[in-house]
């Protein structure tokens, strides 16, 4: 079976006032239908840029300089804008990090949830509204139908993120991309939202890309994991495999910094030494080398490529003795 989404060797460059920034450098990922892929990594590692480039939403300053994004048999880096619009919201839907600012303040919730149905399924507004009401029910918004007429400011952050989920599910997309959907929310609602998202995508048999900082989330919700560092994927594997057998020093560092429920409450958490890399001034060779406890001479000279170390388990590292 060919994967639903296969990103190969994707590079993205932004033109900024201070010159060009290469935000992604040869990112490769793949995802089968119905699977959940978690993308983890520090702030600035390129998770959002990867996600936005799938839908061609990089804006005026960003562009794909190399690589391909195969989705359901089409290379999204090559298709027309018109074709991209047909795919956006219809086959691939996006849930953004900021529920407070991602909904339009002057349009009713009903209009915003019904809009993709009206647009892609060519339904009348009243039919689309009816479906929007059902969607709000599915994301467990109390009094769903009544609330169609309400505006975003009348909803709490958690409720707005439910609205965003409803909107994403509207056209039964094949792929949903959720970019840190719970980072902006209270800890108490984070788990609810994630379970809801996971259950509904499973019901719809959609694939899910879940971007997160939190490796704890990954363990519970993801089938596959891609770990990003400095605009590259440094390790990718099935979640269970990755937890049992992390192969990249950066992944190991991330694992060691997860608080453990059964751990000694007095023990201090491990943190990875040093700063995330500056993309406009990456260290030569493996960009993790200044922070890597296992760095060797060749790590500062050549870039390691993503290579299989076990079936379905790849890493970008020259290897080291533990």
């Amino acid at each position, binding site marked *: 079976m060919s994967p639903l989404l296969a990103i190969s060797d994707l590079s993205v460059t932004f033109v900024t006032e201070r010159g060009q920034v290469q935000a992604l450098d040869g990112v490769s990922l793949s995802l089968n239908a119905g699977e959940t892929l978690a993308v983890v990594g520090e702030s600035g590692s390129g998770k959002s840029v990867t996600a936005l480039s799938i839908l061609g939403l990089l804006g005026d300053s960003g562009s794909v300089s190399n690589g391909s994004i195969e989705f359901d048999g089409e290379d999204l880096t090559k298709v027309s804008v018109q074709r991209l*619009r047909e795919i956006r919201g219809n086959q691939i839907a996006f849930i953004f990090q900021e529920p407070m600012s991602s909904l339009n303040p002057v349009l009713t919730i009903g209009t915003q949830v019904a*809009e993709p149905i009206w647009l*892609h399924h060519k339904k009348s507004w009243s039919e689309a509204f009816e479906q929007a009401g059902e969607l709000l029910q599915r994301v467990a918004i109390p009094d769903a139908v009544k609330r169609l007429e309400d505006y975003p400011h009348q909803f709490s952050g958690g409720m707005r993120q439910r609205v965003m989920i409803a*909107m994403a599910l509207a056209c039964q997309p094949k792929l949903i991309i959720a970019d840190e959907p719970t980072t902006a929310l209270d800890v108490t609602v984070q788990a609810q939202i994630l379970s809801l998202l996971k259950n509904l995508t499973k019901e719809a048999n959609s694939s899910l890309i879940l971007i997160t900082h939190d490796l704890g989330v990954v363990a519970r919700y993801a089938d596959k994991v891609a770990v990003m560092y400095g605009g590259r994927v440094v390790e990718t594997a099935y979640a269970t495999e990755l937890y049992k057998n992390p192969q990249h020093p950066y992944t190991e560092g991330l694992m060691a910094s997860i608080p453990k429920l059964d751990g000694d409450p007095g023990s201090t958490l491990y943190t990875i030494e040093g700063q995330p890399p500056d993309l406009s001034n990456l260290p030569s060779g493996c960009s993790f080398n200044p922070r890597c406890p296992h760095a060797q001479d060749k790590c500062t000279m050549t870039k390691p490529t993503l290579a299989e170390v076990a079936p379905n388990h790849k890493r970008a590292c020259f290897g080291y003795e533990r």
Partner: protein
Amino acid sequence: MQAFIIRRLLAVIPTLLFTSVIVFASIRLIPGDVVDLMLAQNDISTGTDRAVIEAALGLDKPIYEQYFIWVANALQGDFGYSLWQNTPVAEQLAVTLPITFELGFLALIVALTVAIPIGIYSAMKQDTPGDYITRSFSLLMLAIPSFWLGTLVMVFPSVWWRWAPPLQYTPFFEDPLGNLAHMLVPAVLLGLSLSAVTMRMTRTMMLEVLRQDYIRTARAKGLHENLIIFRHALRNCLIPVVTLIGLQAPLLIGGAVILEQIFVVPGMGLMLLEAVFQRDYPVVTGVFLIVGVSILLINLMVDLTYGFLDPKVRH
């Protein structure tokens, strides 16, 4: 909503009182008072006594007493009598106010139909030649005073093409086309000068709105750029633009005063100008009071428009 309007209207009273004091005092502070002017026009040798005139016009009383009498009368809708024509100020205002209002309204329509589409266009084509051209045009409109443009329009077409803008006023209800033909040129000039700032504001706000997260959400839904602009961005962008229009209301009226003079439109502006030259105190104070009330009403309308545009205000 009703309570909101009533509260707003009540809040306006102190402002109006304050304005009236300033206007009342300042017109009397201009050098050369009305009695001097009257004495100069009538032959002094007839021996008319200064004190007699002052008493006849009610100007012999202390100024604060004059003020309180005026306020007491104004509250009953009586703005006194013109010192020169001896006609009620309120009657004159009833004739001139609608004319100025028409001019202002036409100018506003011109301003909005020019400024908003061009502002949006300019934002959508940011940093293209089209954007530069419209921005330079708006800078030009901002820099050129409308009285100067008005004078040019009066002078040059007649020299070049032997055409001059019509200067004959006819009331709208007698001859709507004739009336509009006369009002059109000053309304366009006034509207253009008003459109400059509005256009820049629309462009800036549109660019700002297009950077917002909810616009990215709209793009991620697959909407066409036109729908994004008109359904998702425009209303958000108009909220501050409407405020700006409210703030420009005094400018609109100020501009009308001058253009009425150039194009001989018998509105409040012409009435005011004549009254100032003649130091016709009750007329000047009356006009200013009406201008003040109009500006406050315009701002009230702006607030009501807000409620329509911004659901946060409505609830």
